[in-house]
């Protein structure tokens, strides 16, 4: 059964108060750092001060002798994760690399790389002990940027990485871990056919996900190996699996309990602390709590990569693009695995290019290993492509929105990466953009308007859900995904809709790893899609059980019972004449009709439905200071079906704001020795309330037929268009094209000075 007809819905599409809301406005909600255990120790990490250095020796004796210190660990305390054990389940992480990222073995590969850890009875003692750990390093040459790292003779991070994806297989190790390539048609012929060809180079700096909650965990390992982990992450099952492999424990011995999570945006889809706390706890016999400082978050946890993006577009005078090419080089950080492939795919996926080629390089460098960040890889590639589309529109003297209407992907378009689109809403986002008041609003001096689009795959995958009818007819839903932005509400809404009961009668719970079946992480914009599919199917199974129980009570066949509006009714006159039975009545009698009423469902959800968005941004540029003010912003997105529209809008507004930060102010600044100079929110500036206007949203609903309610992922694509939308707006306001992020005041000033030396001299 599906619920795609919006007119029939009573709960889905409304805006109830989230079930965990009161806990979060009153300070009751327990996040990663809020837990305590009796006898708990505090764990702290000793980190490398060098960007690249061989670890010659680590002497922990003095630290261990300090009163209050209960355990000290180094890489030598951890098992070697062999290549055969590098992967677990369907999770993409390379656990061999992750293990060496959690704690260095042999070499420190970036400033901030963990080399040792201590647990002590107080935070002060643990900090003091860190200074007593003596590490002898041999400093090695380091390399920070992609083209330097790709050059012959560059310092090598790993001697066992040989570039994958090229023939013949290389015989010399390289910092290029892989090359990816997607092609369609004949790109050279396409460029020959063009009346105009433009080729541009764009660059971006690493940016941090910027979750306000630093990583935190509390881990207790008993002498028999039974382990409890409280931690803040995007997946308790991920924490369990990754920790088990890194420390060499069986999964069944680990119970991972999800704390409330204070933001993740992809950055909490891997572990940093849990394996260290596990080992400190194992060695000390005490529970160990670890909480990162903000500085540690910046120095050692995943940014999105800095990158170089080269885009070439060819078009006919009438605006039809004949060929597109993009070359992407992404920083992977200290271990392979940047999201360059997604950057290649997503940048081009918005358009119906007859001929296209994209090549991506995954490049190792002495920076923290990059981590997922909201549509990983896509915002960077799209900054290049969407800026270049705007430059092409200018060269052709065609309205940029019109150029997108002419060349935009639609159902039946075959994308460069081989997918043929069905049920996509991209053109509808363009129609909606054209219909906005925003697009018609007049602009003043030094003001300009930019447009950009974006695409993200969204994800499905493994999810579990259980629905329990309680004795009084209320309902408990247990799911396996940490609630990072209101998903408990959407889960409860879908269950309430299927059961025909009020939203308030459904209590959603995020279960620990022993209370619900395996569920993949909260990421890939997958929870409302895959988790929603699981809770819906579980609720549907419960409806079948409820009909059977009513049939037993009435002594008729279950086929003669129908369920509507939260009650069992005889299906027709032939079924007999009975008073309807509600959930409370059936729940209260469950012992006499066969026992507890519940259903658990495990699925591997497919058909997530792609996400497309188009954004409109107005800016005003101060020519004197180089400051860019965001005047107005409208995000238009195909959301499939908005289950709880307020939280869909919130995803769009939040993604836009992160994009504005990426566009204008956020960047990592390193000194010549590869040390981060701005590891704090004062100098790494994310947008604050006074930087922004209200963010307008337009939710286009093209239902995804593969989801019972038509939902498609909404969380990630809002971060794809903003950087180009802002850059295009700055160009419209000033005539200056900025191709290097962030577009901070010094860069605008320099650009003004370059075009107007006289003004600068005044």
């Amino acid at each position, binding site marked *: 059964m599906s619920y795609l007809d919006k007119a029939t819905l009573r709960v889905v599409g409304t805006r109830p108060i989230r079930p965990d809301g009161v806990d979060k406005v009153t300070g009751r909600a327990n996040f990663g750092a809020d837990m305590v255990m009796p006898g708990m120790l505090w764990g702290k990490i000793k980190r490398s001060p060098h960007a690249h250095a061989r670890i010659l020796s680590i002497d922990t004796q003095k630290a261990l002798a300090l009163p209050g210190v209960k355990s000290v660990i180094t890489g030598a305390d951890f098992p070697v994760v062999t290549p055969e054990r590098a992967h677990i389940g369907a999770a993409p992480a390379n656990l061999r690399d992750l293990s060496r990222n959690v704690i260095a073995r042999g070499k420190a590969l970036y400033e901030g790389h963990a080399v040792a850890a201590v647990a002590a009875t107080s935070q002060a003692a643990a900090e003091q002990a860190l200074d007593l750990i003596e590490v002898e390093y041999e400093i090695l040459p380091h390399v920070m940027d992609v083209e330097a790292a790709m050059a012959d003779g560059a310092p090598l991070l790993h001697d066992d990485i040989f570039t994958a994806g090229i023939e013949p297989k290389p015989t010399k190790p390289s910092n290029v871990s892989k090359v990816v390539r997607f092609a369609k048609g004949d790109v050279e012929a396409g460029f020959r056919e063009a009346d105009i060809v433009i080729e541009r180079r764009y660059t971006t700096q690493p940016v941090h996900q910027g979750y306000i909650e630093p990583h935190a965990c509390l881990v207790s390992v008993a002498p028999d190996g039974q382990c409890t982990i409280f931690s803040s992450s995007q997946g308790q099952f991920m924490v369990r699996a990754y920790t088990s492999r890194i420390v060499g424990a069986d999964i069944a011995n680990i119970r991972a309990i999800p704390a409330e999570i204070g933001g993740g945006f992809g950055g909490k889809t891997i572990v940093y602390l849990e394996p260290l706390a596990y080992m400190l706890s194992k060695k000390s016999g005490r529970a160990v709590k670890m909480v990162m400082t903000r500085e540690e978050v910046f120095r050692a946890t995943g940014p999105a990569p800095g990158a170089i993006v080269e885009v070439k577009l060819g078009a006919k005078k009438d605006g039809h693009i004949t060929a597109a090419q993009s070359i992407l080089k992404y920083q992977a950080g200290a271990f392979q695995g940047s999201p360059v492939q997604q950057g290649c795919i997503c940048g081009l996926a918005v358009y119906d290019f007859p001929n296209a080629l994209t090549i991506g390089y995954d490049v190792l460098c002495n920076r923290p290993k990059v981590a997922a960040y909201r549509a990983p890889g896509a915002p960077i590639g799209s900054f290049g492509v969407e800026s270049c589309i705007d430059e092409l529109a200018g060269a052709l003297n065609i309205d940029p929105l019109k150029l997108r209407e002419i060349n935009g992907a639609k159902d039946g378009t075959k994308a460069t990466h081989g997918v043929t689109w069905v049920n996509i809403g991209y053109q509808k986002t363009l129609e909606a953009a054209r219909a906005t008041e925003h697009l018609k609003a007049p602009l003043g001096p030094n003001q300009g308007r930019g447009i950009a689009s974006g695409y993200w795959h969204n994800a499905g995958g493994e999810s579990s859900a259980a629905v329990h009818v309680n004795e009084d007819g209320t309902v408990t839903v247990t799911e396996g995904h940490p609630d990072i932005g209101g998903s408990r509400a959407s889960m409860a809404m879908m269950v309430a809709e299927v059961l025909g009961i009020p939203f308030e009668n459904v209590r959603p719970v995020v279960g620990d790893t022993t209370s619900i079946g395996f569920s993949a992480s909260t990421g890939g914009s997958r929870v409302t899609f895959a988790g929603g599919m699981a809770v819906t199917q579980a609720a549907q199974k419960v409806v079948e059980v409820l009909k059977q129980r009513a049939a037993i009570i009435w002594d008729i066949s279950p086929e003669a019972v129908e369920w509507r509006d939260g009650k069992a009714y005889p299906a027709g006159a032939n079924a007999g004449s009975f008073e309807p039975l509600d959930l409370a009545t059936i729940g209260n009698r469950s012992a006499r009709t066969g026992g507890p009423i519940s259903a658990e469902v495990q699925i591997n959800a497919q058909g997530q439905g792609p996400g497309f968005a188009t954004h409109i941004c107005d800016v005003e540029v101060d020519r004197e200071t180089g400051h860019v003010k965001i005047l107005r912003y409208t995000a238009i997105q195909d959301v499939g079906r908005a289950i*709880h529209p307020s939280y869909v809008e*919130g995803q769009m507004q939040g993604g836009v704001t992160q994009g504005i930060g990426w566009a204008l102010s956020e960047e990592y600044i390193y000194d010549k020795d590869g040390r981060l100079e701005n590891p704090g929110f004062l100098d790494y500036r994310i947008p604050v309330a006074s930087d922004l206007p209200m963010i307008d949203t337009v939710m286009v609903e093209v239902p995804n037929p593969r989801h019972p309610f038509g939902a498609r992922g909404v969380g990630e694509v809002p971060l794809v268009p903003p950087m180009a939308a802002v850059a295009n707006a700055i160009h419209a306001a000033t005539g200056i094209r900025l191709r290097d992020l962030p577009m901070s005041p010094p860069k605008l000033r320099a650009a003004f000075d370059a075009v107007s030396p006289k003004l600068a001299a005044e």
Partner: protein
Amino acid sequence: MSKHHVTTVINGEPMEFLCEAQQTLLDVLRDELGLTGSKEGCGSGDCGACSVIVDDRLVCSCLMLGVEAEGKKITTVEGIAEGDKLHPVQQKFLEHAALQCGFCTPGFIVAAKALLDENRNPTEEETRYWLAGNLCRCTGYDKIIRAVLDAAAEIRGEAGAV
């Protein structure tokens, strides 16, 4: 190193605690008194997640020492609701979906209450500047600002129309 004895009033309750000289008020609240509603996002006064009201003044509790609380009246997020009645700011945060992850929320609730205690009729711009010391990475601030303006309208006895 002996601990210092500090006498305060926290959320209306007279309270005494012992703390070390270097402990911040935030450390004391969270680690000594179990008031974990105040959060540490940065420890440097940049994020506002640890906001508390000290004698009618909004401060980052990570920038104040525990010993400095001597003789002061402190309000934390745990003291904003009256019994089971939420403060209008809390209620409007819920109605406007002004939180996603909820980690910055305690700081915003405290900061917004401090604003409305001082100014029951703030403009959008005044609200944005007042809250500029509180970082939120999830919401883009839109729904937070609407919630605060709506709470102000309710406190003034007007029907909110934000």
